[in-house]
């Protein structure tokens, strides 16, 4: 039963207890922040001393792909898991394109898609020297992919065979590189110093594709689920499944 106070999960005393708890936690955290030492240089000094062997010139990229590469590997795994999760939660709604795209969208797509791909490649490349890299490039590419899915001009992105491959290739290449470097150098993700820059670029390129594909997948899965089914067949299958589920 939903309670009469609608939006809230608790009665008034419960809300007060929650408020006091959160305020206490915020106070403790705020006090901790207030008393933090003003300068902490150990970590950044360590990183700037190790920059020459990282293979790149941008410290953030060096941390992401080299010093803490394990984080990034797991993160791409999380992204892939989320995409698979969205697919399995909303499978009936994913493989569908809009039948009548807006002409403005189609024009926008034609004008912008080449630039989006170009900018994405540029951001990926510049990550070696300046702010940029696989995640930013992947996000830009995903924007292009979402535009493509929304406009759907004679091209059904979510039904294409390349999508699953693109979604998985980032994790695959990252894992292959990690295992190969373990064979050669002895440690998981320990790049040989001379090859580090090249390896990072290869991993980042694959990761860019995967991030873009997974983000598009997440968007398509979440987006079409709220739309009414386009064709009659789809809705029949859906209701059939639902009946089975209820029984």
């Amino acid at each position, binding site marked *: 039963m939903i309670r009469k106070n609608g939006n809230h999960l608790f009665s008034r005393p419960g809300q007060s207890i929650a408020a006091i708890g959160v305020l206490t936690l915020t106070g403790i955290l705020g006090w901790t922040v207030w008393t933090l030492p003003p300068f902490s240089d150990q970590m950044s000094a360590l990183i700037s001393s190790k920059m020459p062997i990282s293979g790149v010139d941008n410290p953030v990229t060096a941390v992401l792909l080299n010093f803490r590469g394990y984080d990034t590997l797991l993160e791409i795994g999380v992204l892939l898991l989320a995409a698979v999760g969205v697919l399995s939660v*909303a499978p009936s709604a994913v493989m569908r394109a809009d039948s009548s795209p807006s002409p403005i969208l189609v024009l926008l797509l034609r004008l912008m898609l080449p630039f989006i791909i170009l900018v994405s490649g540029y951001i990926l490349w510049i990550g070696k020297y300046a702010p940029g890299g696989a995640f930013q490039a992947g996000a830009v590419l995903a924007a292009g992919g979402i535009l493509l899915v929304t406009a759907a001009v004679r091209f059904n992105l979510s039904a294409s065979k390349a999508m699953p491959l693109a979604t998985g290739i980032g994790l695959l290449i990252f894992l292959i590189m990690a295992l190969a470097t373990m064979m050669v150098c002895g440690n998981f993700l320990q790049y040989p110093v001379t090859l580090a820059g090249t390896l990072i670029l290869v991993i980042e390129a694959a990761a860019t594709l995967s991030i873009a594909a997974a983000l598009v997948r*997440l968007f398509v899965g979440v987006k079409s689920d709220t739309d009414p089914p386009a064709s009659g067949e789809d809705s029949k299958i859906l209701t059939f499944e639902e009946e089975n589920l209820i029984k």
Partner: protein
Amino acid sequence: MNIPILYELVGVILLGMGLYSLVIYSHLFRKILALNVSGAGVFLFLVAAADRTSGPLPDPVPHAMVLTGIVVAVSATALALALACRIHQVSGNAQLTDNKPE
């Protein structure tokens, strides 16, 4: 008082606001939004804390952590939204119910 500490405190306040809404509201969409607000608070804190170096450059480690965190937050939000949509589809209601006897 220097500038980073201002942003850090705003981050802590955002975290508190998000946590409170996460506990209080019963609608799943509000809970997902609340998680995102508290996540934004954590990111704001980390990015501001990276400025606590004596040199001109900020500490790259928190920046990398935030970059990782944003991607994970987006994935988790999308999955949570898909689950909430599915719950709405199956049960006709996206609100948590109170199981206490009236």
